[in-house]
């Protein structure tokens, strides 16, 4: 390893960290006396600039990534680059949503923590070594706990953060325990080396135990059933921009990590014949998440909790894709691309959804279904954005959510034939038909039912522009899915 390589490969992470420090210096040093509004704008813009610099850093990357000795520690390019670019763009969007919020006076700290958490996200997307993975994961998770608790005057926020923290601590313990088994079995912390060692020694019960422990730890990060219990409370209690960050950026990063770990294990099958039931645990989580998420969402009256359960359901669809990543490299890319397409577009849509919920919540003081009554009269633009985003989440064409599902399910069926994938895809499609009901419950209040209060709801122009841009992206990528597919595919050459 030489330090010039390390610097080159971690340029995006470095850029984010520098931006985080810069935000702290500017906000706590130069702008101490300035009005809160000015500080929010400056901090958010600095954060966005940091994301921009990190994107530029990604564009400079060449080669496979960073090697220590012969083992790859940080990967570059391909799916990693797609996930990292997604993380940065989504982070920038959640920072822009901050401009309109007033839950905290400590904006400098907020933005700095967001940027550091995003750094953790970038790290876990690219890490190929268990220790680096764990460091990145903790960097991300600790940031998320702090962000959840950031509305200091809100009891709900503190409660949510505590729950999130306790669940998170436990899942980190599971993960670490699993990692230690992997190390014990192979004598290495590097994914490729572990893969090789396991492939030569053959399957052992201990390996399965370690795998289940790791899946439990990561299942918590992506809110898969039965490790999902933190999600509704956290989504409900966290300040809106923080909830949007948890729902999107953290999801993208965690799924990127899950892809890289699953792929290394599933590819063992290529060397010494398929291993029975390795993906089975993922399938169980996927099916459980789809069913529980969609059915529990039917009963929600809080839109944030509804979004949380819908997130659980979507995690189920994505896990289904990951479980069917085939062993051989070239066809695994097909499924991987479909999964990334899904994760990125889901993250984008859900940020928009939280943006709308945030504006409505500020105006009405609640995120209950009934606070959306008559939204089409109170703010037609916001209502139209909500319509587009929720229909996309439900998977109605020609919006991007449809193609995400379609792409993924077609890839799953193409990757493996037989009754299992087919039955699970059928379950997923049937469950997404269920989901239309609860998305329509919100839209029904926005468009159909009479308004109780007709005073217009005002949204900050920046928020409005961000939301419109997201809605426009959802429509454009929905009408021309090939644009996004082509962009993702361009990283795999």
């Amino acid at each position, binding site marked *: 390893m030489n330090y010039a390589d390390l610097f080159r490969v971690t340029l995006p992470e470095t850029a984010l960290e520098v931006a985080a420090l810069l935000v702290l210096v500017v906000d706590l040093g130069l702008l101490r006396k300035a009005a809160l509004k000015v500080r929010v704008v400056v901090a958010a813009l600095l954060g966005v600039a940091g994301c921009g610099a990190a994107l530029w850093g990604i564009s400079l990357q060449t080669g496979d990534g960073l090697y220590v000795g012969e083992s790859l520690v940080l990967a570059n390019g391909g799916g990693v680059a797609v996930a990292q670019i997604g993380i940065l763009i989504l982070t920038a969007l959640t920072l822009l949503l901050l401009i309109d919020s007033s839950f905290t006076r400590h904006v400098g700290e907020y933005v700095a923590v967001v940027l550091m958490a995003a750094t953790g996200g970038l790290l876990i997307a690219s890490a190929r070594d268990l220790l680096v993975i764990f460091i990145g994961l903790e960097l991300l998770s600790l940031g998320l706990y702090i962000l959840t608790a950031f509305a200091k005057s809100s009891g709900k926020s503190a409660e949510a953060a505590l729950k999130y923290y306790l669940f998170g601590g436990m899942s980190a313990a599971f993960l670490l325990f699993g990692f230690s088994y992997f190390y014990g079995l192979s004598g290495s912390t590097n994914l490729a080396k572990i893969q090789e060692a396991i492939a030569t020694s053959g399957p052992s019960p201990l390996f399965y135990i370690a795998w289940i422990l790791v899946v439990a730890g990561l299942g918590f990060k992506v809110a898969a059933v039965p490790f999902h219990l933190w999600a509704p409370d956290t989504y409900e209690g966290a300040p809106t921009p923080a909830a949007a960050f948890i729902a999107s950026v953290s999801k993208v990063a965690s799924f990127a990590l899950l892809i890289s770990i699953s792929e290394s294990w599933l590819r063992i099958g290529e060397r010494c014949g398929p291993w029975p039931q390795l993906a089975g645990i993922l399938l169980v989580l996927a099916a459980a998440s789809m069913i529980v998420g969609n059915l529990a969402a039917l009963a929600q009256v809080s839109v944030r909790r509804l979004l949380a359960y819908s997130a659980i359901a979507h995690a189920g669809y994505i896990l289904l894709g990951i479980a069917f990543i085939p062993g051989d490299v070239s066809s695994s890319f097909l499924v991987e691309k479909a999964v990334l397409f899904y994760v990125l577009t889901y993250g984008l849509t859900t940020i928009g959804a939280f943006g709308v919920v945030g504006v409505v919540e500020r105006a009405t003081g609640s995120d209950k279904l009934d606070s959306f009554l008559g939204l089409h009269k109170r703010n037609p633009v916001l209502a139209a954005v909500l319509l587009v985003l929720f229909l996309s989440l439900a998977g109605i064409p020609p919006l991007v959510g449809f193609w995400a599902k*379609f792409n993924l399910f077609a890839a799953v069926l193409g990757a493996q034939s037989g009754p299992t994938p087919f039955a699970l895809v059928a379950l997923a499609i*049937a469950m997404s*038909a269920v989901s239309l009901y609860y998305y329509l419950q919100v839209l029904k209040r926005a468009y159909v039912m009479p308004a109780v209060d007709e005073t217009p709801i005002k949204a900050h122009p920046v928020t409005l522009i961000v939301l419109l841009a997201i809605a426009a992206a959802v429509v454009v990528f929905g009408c021309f899915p090939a644009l996004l*597919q082509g962009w993702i595919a361009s990283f795999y050459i």
Partner: protein
Amino acid sequence: MLAWTIYLSFAGALLLALLPKGRPALARWLAFAVAVAGLALAVAGFVTGMGQGRVVIVDVPWVPSMGIHFLLAADGISRVLVLLTGLAAVAGVLFSWNIELRTHEFFAFFLALIGGVYGVFLSFDLFLLFVFYEIAIVPKYFLIAIWGSTRREYAAMKLALFSFAGSAMVLIGLLAAYATAGSHSTGLIALGHANLPVSFQMWCFPLVFTGFAILAGMWPFHTWAPTGHVAAPTAASMLLAGVVMKLGAYGCLRVGIALFPRGLDPWGFSFVGIGSWRDVFAVLAVVGIVYGALVALVQTDFKFVIGYSSVSHMGFVLLGLMTLNQIGVTGAVLQMFSHGIIAGLLFAIVGRIVYERTHTRQLAELETMHLSKRLPFAAWAFVIAGMASMGLPGFSGFVAELQVLVGAWMVKPWWTAAAGVGIVVGVAYTWRVLQKAFFSDTLPSAHVLEQEHAHAFAPITWPEATGVVLLGGVSLAVGLYPKILLDAIEPAVKALLAGGGQ
């Protein structure tokens, strides 16, 4: 040229959605202009397409990685159904002339629905067809939920969920077909030649067919139809019965039958006379015909009568499809057109002309109103529409149902016999509502006459008269000279039955 019907409708919908509020007249005329332009294009496409087979209109790659093309084409069946959509759109706008609540939004959803319907009829790519099919779901929901009447939110949600469940079944089947065929084209013609394994077709066909048939009102999945039709505003019931149910039937034909022809083969064993999926669906269709007619016979709400009659008439379409012979399937397609026109006319009379003046649809109350005297135009329009609906010679329904019955006789005579019962009951329920609603023979006393004179109904407006003349005229014209449509339908059906189109 026909492709512009789609673009124009969606552009009109977008324009109306962006239009500033508070200009209802402008919204109306704009929607009317778009609908008329669509009809003009449909007529022009029909006329220029005469004697031609399948013509590709647009073919550009859409999602190259999956081989999905934006492939629009038209054969005789498409052209006839596009023509029907154009007519239904114009009539729908005419009969919604009195919408004052959120006018521009109403017409925006209306045109979006119409655009989706045009799209389905013109798509020759499996997934493009599916996309347009799903686009049509959302506007339907809002049209009923916002502007509807009786239990509108329930009916709208029921309709949306039935449609979405149906399309989920279709999507499962289509994805499975795509994966099984392993081809890199999703064109209907290409997939039709993919020679899917018979065992696969055997289970995929009923899945896809049922998914589409839910929207065609197949018994026992028809329950969305009467509630949906009754709750919907007039124009939406006209569209629901007129074209949306046809989307389902069209999907059954174009995707179900054309893609999985072997799915209709005999199973090799038979159980109580049922030995193939074809028998299963034909029996369901016959049950739908008789059941719909019998239930229509006892309704107390005028609109429910028409709603159940739609279930009955759509049964003929499905029965015609299951005959799988030239005459039966031709009859089914003609019945789609014919029922689209006639159901539209019936819903317009009941939901708009009568209801807007009497504010009731209860037959018991209408009985006391002497409508034949007070609304002679409505009464005679309903007589004509009723005769068409009964399938009297001279109207389009006669030719269509006759062909279906002949086709069914050639397969299994008892299908025809049972469906014939449905026709007889059809005469009975039409007669019953005609008599109850318009020609009840209780003579008004002098006092009542005076009162009625004092509260005279609003005169028939020009949009109403135009709409009735348009729909009635078309039904009559097709009834007297069916060759005009049959010339287009027959070759297309022949090609389709011969295997996946030309």
